[in-house]
Each structure stands twice: as structure tokens, then as C-alpha cells.
């Protein structure tokens, strides 16, 4: 569009493992050219986009460098960029270029339909107004329609009947079509279950230097795993030491742990108090553990249970890892057991990611984590109290739990009617079958004749002994009771009951469907203003016709027996439609006044 060409510094790799050749990547509308910095290098590239069948790139936030991978039929070109920003610019450009070349290929010849289809499906989200649909996209749409019956209904109603065109219908649902984002956004990435606690140091044999690799992801995991480190980070950085010093200290302590030299650790801790924080047992964790023990069911006797297991007996316990832990008692403080680490890791992994912030800045991560931890603490306290009250009550001394039974009390009939109210209107509707009037057209004489006949019939038969059958009488009485309970207490009494639920299912579904249709039409209607092209004005005309049709249908629904409730629901729909009609008329007049230039006094 605005830029016909993109030039970026990048290094080219033919394989992932390849160290890469630094150079300059130039992308134009139909091809990309790579020129290495070293003119003697053989890694020159000049590839046209129409050969490219797919493109991939690494995601920001992972530990991978910014790579763009363009692949054609038999090989792939990998470019490593200086930053993710460069990568994104190039990726978007490639996306557009591929879309164009894919279309061009389709238009010129249908020789390679599969590769073209793949291209369009991967360009994801770039839709042109009168696009030729690829098979993949068509399949996606079909699948969406099959999955969502409501969408299918709307599609049938508007697209098949010609109110909206296919592309108009889908234009408002780009999100659904973007299949990738649909599946990805649903799942949140949790922690890896591998032990990041033992960040393995890298040592090179020559120097006496230990290197730890640290990424924002690891920092975040450390904060989550070790509240004490988290706390220390908040207090110490950046007031007392820089972030770099902090992590150096932390890993020094980690290193001491990994050597399993408790004596050395104790000695170091005595010298440096900050270092001691990392070496000592995590105080916050310990208190949390104590709190957890308090939350255990109070009826559980831990002491008694201990007698039942054998883990504390020699030869039945779980030892750390074959090597013996023989340490003096005074250094116990500086020893961490594997089971502690495992438990903590498991707890954090299960808890999942609680913060959702940019991982680049450890400070914000630390604060966000603090926030989320505080919230969960309060609810946990409340839960503990509830638990204690639940557990400590002794059943024999308790009153019976009251069952929700409303007694029939003549003095206060409301309770009784309230209990009868639930399905009152629905049964009312079901029993309404008998009153349907027969279609019958008699002449005047016949009609009067039948009436006289009926009178003489009753004269001859007389009154029967039982006018009403007992079964009918009881149905009538039940119906009246339900009617009373439903009408008197129906509206506005119970906030949970919506008016919609009290309607019979058919009416309810009809109303909901109309509401969805109206929403769809209104969305298209308002989005086509201001009207700049004739296409838009015909579209608005079509939409208006469809809306006025629904308007009439709503009027018809209002004629039913539930006129009162239905009109409550229909009113906002009518109002929304009225607003649209009014705008349509006003706009039509305005445009008529503007186009009719020969009427000078046509004030709008």
C-alpha cells in the first residue's frame, strides 16, 4: 500500500543450525532479494514471491530469536532479524505480497490450485471486498455454520434471501474466520513442569567460571516458586543493589546448594547477610506450609496417621537420590530436601499463571505477582473459617436442616401460590388446545337452525345429573390456582425469573431469534453510514426492507395471549428499529436535498 519496498538488516540461514550470513534483505512487491555484507559470499538470493508457498515466524516472548521462515516447494529461507519489530514489518509485507501473488496466480491459470489455496488460508485476516473464496476458507465457513446453528439460521435468513451478500455477512465475523486466534486464545500457557529450580550452570573447562542463563520467563518462575526471593527482590532492588547484582547473588547461593556443601554454605551465609536470604529456608514458604496444615480437616488426627506409615522408618523412606545426606544438625537450616522442592514446584505448576503482564520488566512482574497473592490470601482465610464451622459441628447436637417446604397456610395464601407459580403459565398454554375454533361457514338459516336445534335438544334431554366430569373439575381447579399464582405474583417479584422464561418455548425462541436478526441487521445498517457509494445505498435499502418485515412480525407476536409480557420485551426492539428508520428517512431527505441542486430553498 504505502510502502512498495522494505529493506531490513538480517542474516540468512539455509538451515536452523546454520550460523547465518549477515546481509541486507530487500522485499518488493513480487520478489525478495538478499545481499550478504561480504560480497564474496555465495549466499545471494533473488526469489519471486509466487514460488513461496508458506511463511512462518517465531513468536515474541519465547526464547527464540526473531526468525522469519519463507518456504517454497523444496527448501526454506530463514532470516534472523535484529528485533521483533523488524520481523513484524517484514512478516506483514510478506503476507500482503503472498496474498497478491496468490490471487494473480489464480487469475492467470488454475494450474496450481492447491498451492494457491494454501497461500490464501495462511494469509489469515486479509479479506478483499470481492474476493474469490478459496476452498480452505469455504470449508472453514461451512464448519462454522455447522457448529453454530444460530449462525446458520441467520445465514439462511439473510444471505440466502439476499438481504446481505456472503462477504458482507462474514465481514463482521472476521474473528471467527481467523481460525488460529480462535483456538489459541482459549488456552493459556502454564508453567513447564520441568524443575527450573535447578537451572543448570554451564561451565567451560578452561576457566573457573560458572554461567547461568537467565530469561524473563525464568525470572518470573523463580518469583512464583520462591516467595522469599520475590520479597527480597521487592525490598532490595533497586534501592540497595542493582538487578544484576541481585541475580548474581541469587545464583551464587544456588551454586552453593548445587554443590551440596552445607558447611561452605553456612560459612558464606555468615559473611554476607543478603546471601543468607537465599540460602536459608524460605520463611514465607514455611509460614504458608503452617497455614496449610491449619487448613487441614480438624477431625484428622495427624499423629495417629503417622503411626500407620512407614516412611519415617529406616529403609522405607524416600531418600534424596542415592547419595547420603549426612550433615551436622546446626547446618540443617541450609539444607533443602528434594521432596520440598518437588512439592513446591508441583504447587506452583498447578496454580498456573496468575499474572498476565509483560515479562520483560522483572519489577512489574514482581509487583503483579504480589497483588495476585494478596487476593487469594483473603479468600483462603474465609474458606478456612467456613471449614472449621462446618467440620466442628457435631451432628447429634444439631437441629435438623430445614427442607425448603412451603406449608399450606390459609391465613397467608401467598406462600402456597408462590410454590405453584413455577410452571403455571406453561401448563396454561399446554391446556389451551381445546379452545381452537373450527373453521366453519354456514349460511344464516343453517346457523340459526342449528341454534334452535340445540335449544330443543336440551329441552328434550333436560339437565344431566353431573354437569361436569370430576376429572375435568379437578383440572379446572388446578388451572385456576396456577393462574392466580402466576398472574398475581409473576412480574417483578423474583429478580432471578426473567419475563422471557415465563413465556412458552415457541414464543421465547421466536423472540430470541428476532432479537438476533435485528442485531445483525442493525450492525450492518449503522456500519454502512455515511453513505458514500451507490452500493451502500442499495444495501441500506435492502436492510431497511428486511427490518420493516421483522417489525411487522414482532407486531404479530404481540397479538398472542401473553400480550403484556411480550410487549415488554418487544418494546426495546421496536425502539432500536424506530431509531434506524428515522435515521434512514432523515438521511434520505438530506441526500435528496443535496442532489437536487436546482431547488435553492431546500433546507434540510
Amino acid at each position, binding site marked *: 500500500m504505502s510502502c512498495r519496498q522494505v529493506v531490513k538488516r538480517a542474516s540468512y540461514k539455509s538451515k536452523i543450525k546454520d550460523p547465518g550470513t549477515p546481509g541486507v534483505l530487500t522485499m518488493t512487491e513480487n520478489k525478495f532479494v538478499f545481499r550478504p555484507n561480504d560480497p564474496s559470499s555465495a549466499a545471494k538470493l533473488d526469489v519471486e514471491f509466487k514460488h513461496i508457498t508458506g511463511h512462518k515466524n517465531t513468536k515474541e516472548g519465547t526464547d527464540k530469536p526473531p526468525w522469519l521462515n519463507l518456504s517454497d516447494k523444496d527448501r526454506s529461507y530463514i532470516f534472523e532479524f535484529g528485533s521483533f519489530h523488524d520481523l513484524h514489518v517484514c512478516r506483514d509485507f510478506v503476507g500482503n505480497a503472498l496474498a497478491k501473488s496468490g490471487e494473480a496466480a489464480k487469475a492467470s491459470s488454475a494450474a496450481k490450485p492447491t498451492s494457491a489455496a494454501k497461500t490464501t488460508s495462511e494469509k489469515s485476516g486479509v479479506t478483499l471486498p470481492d474476493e474469490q473464496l478459496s476452498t480452505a476458507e469455504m470449508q472453514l465457513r461451512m464448519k462454522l455454520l455447522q457448529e453454530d446453528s444460530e449462525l446458520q439460521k441467520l445465514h439462511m435468513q439473510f444471505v440466502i434471501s439476499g438481504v446481505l451478500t456472503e462477504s458482507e455477512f462474514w465481514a463482521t465475523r472476521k474473528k471467527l474466520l481467523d481460525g488460529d486466534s480462535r483456538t489459541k486464545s482459549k488456552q493459556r500457557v502454564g508453567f513447564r513442569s520441568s524443575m527450573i529450580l535447578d537451572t543448570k550452570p554451564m561451565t567451560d573447562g578452561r576457566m573457573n567460571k560458572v554461567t547461568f542463563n537467565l530469561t524473563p520467563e525464568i525470572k518470573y518462575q523463580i518469583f512464583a516458586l520462591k516467595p522469599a526471593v520475590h520479597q527480597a527482590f521487592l525490598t532490595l532492588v533497586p534501592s540497595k543493589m542493582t538487578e544484576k547484582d541481585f541475580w548474581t547473588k541469587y545464583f551464587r547461593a544456588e551454586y552453593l546448594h548445587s554443590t551440596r556443601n552445607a558447611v561452605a554454605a553456612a560459612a558464606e551465609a555468615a559473611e554476607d547477610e543478603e546471601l543468607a536470604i537465599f540460602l536459608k529456608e524460605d520463611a514465607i514458604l514455611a509460614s504458608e506450609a503452617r497455614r496449610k496444615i491449619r487448613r487441614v480437616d480438624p477431625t484428622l488426627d495427624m499423629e495417629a496417621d503417622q503411626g500407620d506409615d512407614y516412611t519415617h522408618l529406616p529403609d522405607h523412606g524416600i531418600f534424596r537420590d542415592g547419595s547420603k545426606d549426612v550433615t551436622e544438625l546446626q547446618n540443617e537450616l541450609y539444607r533443602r530436601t528434594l521432596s520440598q522442592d518437588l512439592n513446591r514446584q508441583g504447587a506452583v505448576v498447578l496454580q498456573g499463571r496468575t499474572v498476565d503482564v509483560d515479562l520483560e520488566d522483572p519489577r512489574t512482574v514482581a509487583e503483579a505477582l504480589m497483588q495476585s497473592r494478596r487476593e487469594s490470601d483473603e479468600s483462603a482465610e474465609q474458606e478456612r473459617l467456613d471449614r472449621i464451622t462446618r467440620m466442628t459441628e457435631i451432628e447429634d447436637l444439631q437441629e435438623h436442616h430445614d427442607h425448603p417446604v412451603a406449608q399450606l397456610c390459609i391465613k397467608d395464601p401467598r406462600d402456597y401460590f408462590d410454590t405453584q407459580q413455577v410452571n403455571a403459565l406453561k401448563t396454561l398454554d399446554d391446556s389451551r388446545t381445546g379452545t381452537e375454533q373450527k373453521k366453519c361457514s354456514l349460511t344464516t338459516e343453517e346457523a340459526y337452525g342449528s341454534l334452535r336445534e*340445540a335449544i330443543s335438544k336440551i329441552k328434550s334431554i333436560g339437565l344431566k345429573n353431573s354437569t361436569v366430569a370430576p376429572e375435568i373439575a379437578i383440572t379446572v381447579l388446578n388451572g385456576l390456582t396456577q393462574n392466580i399464582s402466576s398472574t398475581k405474583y*409473576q412480574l417483578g417479584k423474583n429478580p432471578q425469573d426473567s419475563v422471557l422464561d415465563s413465556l412458552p418455548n415457541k414464543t421465547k425462541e421466536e423472540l430470541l431469534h428476532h432479537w438476533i436478526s435485528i442485531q445483525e441487521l442493525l450492525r450492518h445498517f449503522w456500519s454502512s453510514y455515511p453513505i458514500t457509494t451507490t452500493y451502500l445505498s442499495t444495501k441500506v435499502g435492502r436492510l431497511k426492507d428486511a427490518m420493516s418485515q421483522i417489525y411487522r412480525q414482532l407486531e404479530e407476536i404481540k*397479538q398472542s395471549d401473553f400480550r403484556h409480557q411480550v410487549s415488554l420485551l418487544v418494546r426495546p426492539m421496536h425502539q432500536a428499529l424506530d431509531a434506524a428508520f428515522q435515521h434512514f428517512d432523515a438521511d434520505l431527505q438530506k441526500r435528496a436535498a443535496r442532489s437536487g441542486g436546482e431547488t435553492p430553498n431546500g433546507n434540510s
Partner: protein
Amino acid sequence: MASAPSKLYADDVSLLMVLLDTNPFFWSSSSLPFSVFLSHVLTFLNSILLLNQLNQVVVIATGYNSCSYIYDSSTSTNQGSDNGRMPARCVNLLQKLEEFVIEDEQLIKEGLREGIASSLLSGSLSMALCYIQRVFRSGPLHPQPRILCLQGSSDGPEQYVAIMNAIFSAQRSVVPIDSCYMGSSNSAFLQQASYITGGVYLKPQQPNGLFQYLSTVFATDLHSRAFLQLPKSLGVDFRASCFCHKKTIDMGYICSVCLSIFCKHHKKCSTCGSVFGQAQSDVNSTSNKKRKTPET
């Protein structure tokens, strides 16, 4: 009237005006046969008269062309041809009803019958109110009157003004109009009548159990009603008929002077002769109309 029996008019004595729909076009197409309907109603009338010695029942037939009193329990004697199958008063009533139907048929003019076959409800309501007024004026002590419409045929919008006037006069004289509507859809007139006068509107779901409905809902006197929970209409169809074409309308134009209702914009009110909208320009009035009737 002697003073001794008039003392006995306690607050639970009722005067029940029953308006019986005898529209042949309705009953020939109804799912409930007219003979069954009549047997339920006759049983109900008997039980009303048995509830209290002083209870009084008047039956008015609402025909297609005319209305008539066909029974009055205060004047009819219990002597007659009691043939063992039914009480003498029922025989009398049926006799009068048959005569009425024949007269009603003779009144019909050929070719006048249109699509809507509505009964002359406004006429029978007026007759009932007249009878009640006579009872009111007979002395300070009288039974508590109420009107029960047993209607089946659909509303006749052309009777709108007459029926509304009857409803308002019933409201003024504190006479509740109960209505039991047997037709397929609800009757807007009767809903409004019962709503305005504080009566009960009921549309039986089980037509075969009509007697049960009548005796449960409509048998009790006005005094006892205060202690009962009777069915109430949830929503009332308040739509009016326009005065110009007698159509039932949702939205319309109202005369600001006499409150007449019109479905279209008129230059002059046909009821009171007020002239509207002279100052308004034509452009404004058309846009105003568009706003009110958006579906056109």
C-alpha cells in the same frame, strides 16, 4: 315493597345480570356445543338462586341483530310445566330463548352479513345497566348488582364507543362487569370492561368444565369477594378503535378537544368539529406521520 323483606337485603344478596351470547355464527363454529353450554349455564343459574333466598337472576340474550330480556327470577312464577327433567324456570327460560332466536332471525337483512359476526354486546350491556338503575331507584335497600357477560363471538370494533360508554357508566355506578369469554382469542372489550369496573375477566381453558369455572369464580357475592383470591388478568389489551373506520389500532391521532381517536390525520375532528393543524405546514405533518407509523 314491604318493609319486612327489604330488611333482609344483607350485603351478600346479589342481583346477577347474565348476558348470554346467542350469536348463531359463533356457536355453529365453536368447539363447545350450544346445548352443553346451555346446560352448564342453567345449572349455574339454579345454584345462584339456591345460594341465597333473595338472590335475583336476570338473563339477557345478546343476539346478532337484537337483545332481549329472556328471564327474570323476580317476576317468573315457579309454576309451569315441570316435566321432571328440569325445573320449571329452566323450561320458561328455554321457551323465551327459542322465541328470541326466531325473532332475531327474522330481523336479519339479506346481504348485510359481513365477515365479522359480532354480537350486539353494547345493546345488552345497556339493557343490563338500565335494569340495574331501576333497582337502584326502587329504594335504599336493594341487592348488590353485578353483570356477567358470557360472550363467545369476537369484538365488533364498530360498537367501540357504545361499549366504552356502557363500561364507564357501570364504573360510575360501581357495578362490576365480570366476563367469561369462550372465543379463541381474548376479547379486548371485555378485558377493558372487567379491568375498569373491577370485575373478573376469565377465558376458560377447559370449555367442558365451564360450570366449574362459573361456580368457582363467578358464583360468590360481592361482599365475599373481598376475602377471595380470584383470577386476575395479567395484561389488558387497551387498544382502541378509531372513530373514522372502526379499526382496532395501536397508534393513532387523538383530538385534543374531545379525545376522539382517528387512525389518520384529519383536518377537522368529525366528533366535535375542532379544526386542527392549520398552522402546521404540510411538510411537518407528513414527517410527523412517518414517525408514528414507521412500517409504511
